[in-house]
């Protein structure tokens, strides 16, 4: 492999597959597009393999705008897992709901490309481009139910608010350029370190944080999330909840840790408050939800709060914990969305809490699997959620943020209420009315199996992956 393109090799694989799909889409067979899903999946898996091959290497390309390091590769793995699982879940879901088309898979791949590029980007402008590549694809995907009012509404809200947040982001980039004379992260760091930070730089950082806050859906930039998750196809909601958040955190961590070290006390104090607000609002409002997709949306907001606890804690423990938690969160959340997506009641997706009454009796395996994912979200041992939270909150305690950890633990207790409520419905309520059925889908079951494997594997033996995560953040902390 040519050294010049090596840093972007996993991205090239994904991009190449996407272009291949554009061509294949024009060729027969025309009736079904499922084979395109298989090709897309193969592309993502190949990218994952390339990532594994590249493991441990460090390189830069395109005048230092793109980097290859352990940090980027770890996120490549997280994002590829998210994309692969979502593709598996999409294969028959799209067919069932009449949204199967070549563009769907192409857009999933382009958004995946954007996410991965965010993790590799070492220049604010490139981060912006990657972010837009990801977002524009997701805006369209969110509106794939274009004959439904909710589908259009979901796309429109996501688009308008996303573009609004991008406006802040770009202006932030411009201000930082004005303050430091560059958009390359390294040179910004050097320039910012040379003299005390002026207002231009600080305001620029604040505006960047608005953009990132929107992508990771932290309070108060979270309000789009529940509406978009509800109206978007469930498979897309899963991708938005996992991949785009992971990518947002990748860029956020890189920018904060490697570039804005000078003002670390400032953004740490800021994120302390944002973390508390985010997890509290997410958890409390989730209690009042009766739509499971909306509930998961608020829960995902709350989880962003937990992850921010790790960002605040900082250091190898905190940042490593963030990476580990994002992987855990990806498996768990895709799994939970996956179960929802396989259930239907009266030819509708089973998204209401009532649809889950007595599910343990009619579909014991699916109910058990969903229960395990929910327990992982709650943070019960021996699931991965426990290990992830343990390391995040442990890092906070170690860095002296005792109160933050206490608030996070209290929040987890509140969260148990709404997660366990679903389990109560499945195991202790009787079903009413039309039975909820499960759709037989090999790909879907395979995805659930992989997600479950991840949740249990990372729960029972977290240490090896945690070590990788901690090693991955090491270059940023230097």
């Amino acid at each position, binding site marked *: 492999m040519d050294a010049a393109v090596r840093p972007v090799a996993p991205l090239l694989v994904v991009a190449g597959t996407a272009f291949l799909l554009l061509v294949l889409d024009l060729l027969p067979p025309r009736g079904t597009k499922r084979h395109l899903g298989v090709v897309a999946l193969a592309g993502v898996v190949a990218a994952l393999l390339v990532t594994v091959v590249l493991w441990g290497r460090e390189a830069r390309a395109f005048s230092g705008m793109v980097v290859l390091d352990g940090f980027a590769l770890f996120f490549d793995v997280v994002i590829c897992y998210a994309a692969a699982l979502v593709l598996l879940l999409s294969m028959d879901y799209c067919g069932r709901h009449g949204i199967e088309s070549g563009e769907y898979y192409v857009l999933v791949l382009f958004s995946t490309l954007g996410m991965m590029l965010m993790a590799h980007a070492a220049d604010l402008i490139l981060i912006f481009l990657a972010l837009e590549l990801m977002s524009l694809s997701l805006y369209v995907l969110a509106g794939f139910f274009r004959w439904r009012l909710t589908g259009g509404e979901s796309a429109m809200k996501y688009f308008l608010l996303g573009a609004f947040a991008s406006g802040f982001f770009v202006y932030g980039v411009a201000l930082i350029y004005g303050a430091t004379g560059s958009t390359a992260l390294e040179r910004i760091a050097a320039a910012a370190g040379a003299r005390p930070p002026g207002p231009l730089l600080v305001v620029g950082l*604040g*505006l960047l944080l608005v953009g990132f806050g929107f992508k990771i859906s932290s309070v108060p930039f979270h309000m789009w999330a529940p509406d978009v998750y509800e109206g978007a196809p469930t498979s897309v909601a899963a991708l938005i909840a996992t991949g785009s958040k992971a990518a947002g955190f990748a860029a956020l961590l890189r920018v904060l840790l490697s570039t804005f070290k000078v003002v670390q006390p400032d953004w740490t*104090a800021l994120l302390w408050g944002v973390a508390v607000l985010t997890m509290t609002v997410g958890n409390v*409002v989730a209690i*009042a939800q009766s739509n499971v997709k909306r509930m998961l949306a608020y829960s995902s907001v709350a989880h962003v709060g937990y992850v921010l606890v790790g960002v605040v804690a900082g250091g190898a423990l905190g940042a490593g914990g963030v990476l580990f938690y994002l992987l855990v969160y990806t498996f768990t959340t895709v799994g939970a969305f996956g179960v929802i997506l396989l259930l239907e009641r009266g030819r509708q997706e089973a998204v209401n809490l009532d649809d889950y009454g007595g599910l343990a009796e009619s579909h014991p395996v699916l109910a058990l699997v969903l229960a395990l994912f929910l327990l992982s979200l709650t943070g019960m041992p021996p699931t991965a959620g426990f290990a992830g939270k343990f390391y995040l909150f442990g890092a906070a305690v170690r860095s002296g943020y005792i109160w933050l950890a206490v608030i996070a633990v209290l929040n987890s207790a509140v969260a148990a209420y709404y997660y366990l409520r679903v389990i109560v419905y499945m195991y202790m309520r009787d079903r009413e009315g039309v039975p909820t059925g499960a759709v037989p889908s090999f790909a879907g079951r395979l995805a659930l199996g992989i997600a479950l494997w991840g949740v249990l594997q990372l729960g029972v033996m977290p240490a090896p992956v945690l070590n990788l995560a901690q090693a991955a953040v090491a270059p940023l902390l230097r």
Partner: protein
Amino acid sequence: MSNIVWLIPLFPLLGTLLNALFGRWIDRKAHWVAVPALGCSFLLSCAVFLKVWQGETFTGDLFPWIQAGSFRTSVTALVDPLSAVMLLVVTGVGFLIHVYSVGYMHGDPGYARFFTYLNFFVFSMVMLVLAGNFLVLYVFWEAVGLCSYLLIGFWYTRRSAADAGKKAFIVNRVGDFGFGLGVMYLWVALGTLDYGEVFARIGALSPTTATVIALLLFMGACGKSAQLPLHTWLPDAMEGPTPVSALIHAATMVTAGVYMVARSHALFERSGVALDVVAWVGGITALFAATIALAQTDIKRVLAYSTISQLGYMFAGVGVGAYAAAIFHLVTHAFFKALLFLGAGSVIHAQAGEQDLRKMGGLAPRMMATTVTFLVGAAGLAGLPPFAGFFSKDEILASSYHRGPLALWALLLIGAFLTAVYVFRVVFLAFFGAPRMPKEVAQHVHESPLVMTVPLGVLALLTAVAGAVGIPSAHGMAFARFVSPVFPLPEGVDHGGLSAYALLVLSVVAATAGVLLAWLVYRGRPVRAEAIGRPRNRLHALVLNKYYVDELYDAVFVRPTLRAAGFCARTLDLGVVDGAVNGVGRLVVGWARSMRALQTGYVMNYAMATLAGAVAIVGFLLWR
């Protein structure tokens, strides 16, 4: 060896998962999963044993498990002669009992559930003996306790079974509390939980610290191995299915305490005092339980008290430093006690669930295979030569004579005599004499199917020949030499007094006298069923009622606790705690409702929130 060691627990785990996930469909064929799984484990254990025989040992990490700052621990396996022997016993006896269960549990509605638990138990027990550090030991210590609880309460619709399960759980909790504290203290004192490192650094502990840790650990052993004063749960545990009693409550799990003390003998030796405590608790329990066993009328309860008593022997052996003898007795006990339990199960099975000795009698002609094998087991337990129990028990008796106080030896010798009495009492009452069961039951008495009698035969054979490895020779007994890497061979300390042969003769005489006494009482004259199990005098009443220990605990611990709990529930809980909890709950839900209303659905408001957030962030950063 590393590759096959991990496979040993893997197979039962796979069996557990298969039966747990697909039990509904496997159902009647559950044994086709469970039994081969254990068979594989057993064969692998044999392979491991052979390698250890050739002098190999193995220590290895499966994976690093917990890392929290300076606290690091891995899931580690340690295979040395001691764990190799234990592996062989657990998987071997386990395999036979699995086979036996196919016949015994036939037609039970919880068939698949039963094999799920049983396989999970074997998995946990294998991990317990493989464990290479105290934390893994503790985890699987709890796991086998869980299995025990689940299996005692297997027929949970029976109130007595559910109660017995609860009792076992609570009593064990008392012991495990101590065990947990001991493990924590060990970590605080030494900063490691790895066997190798702990025993290498044992000199760094002051004897006092070592005593405290050792006694805390021994508290756990008392609970798990049903030693005084935590023995009360084991007789009640007989509510579980008989194969469970044989596997968990006789052959394997209850010996975990002995294994643990033997494994950490360096720690106990460092303390000295702790070893004496172990020896005396063992000796007293041995005699105490043997007397109770004399008067019980339920065949399984006799065997349960006998187990407690025999475990006492093992602890006495460990306590006087005769580790190899104690572990040897553990092995032979596993054989003959499993045999006795399975034989009893066969009897119970034949009589449609009857466990009362008063309603048995005269079974011998109808159930030859069961009778003969049970007799072998009884001879093994009584310590009649040349059966296995003779060699192992004699070794413990001799060690206690040479290395312990004379009173301890006397306790054990009287215990040996009583052991012979009670076990042959069972033999005579159950298998000989005139039948005392109702006619309709008597007509249906039948020999058990082959799937049950074959394991009996194998165990009888083992009971008959396993003693051979314990025959003392010029080089010491073979078994002691095999485990000598773990337990250094005792130096030939001779305090004078009786010679080895005189001791041997004494213990044979005690056992034979016991058998004769049982013969005189229960065969010399016709047995009147009404006379058994009715108190004849104060002493008999005391023994019959198990020294009123249960009643004592009930009065001192259980009832006051319940009363306190009642007070807490009514006054504190309902009034104060519930009020507070419900109040907070209502508060949060109310909060949720109002915060939800902020999410208006209008893009304007969302954009406004975004702007407000941006202003707040920039403002905050500028203000800083």
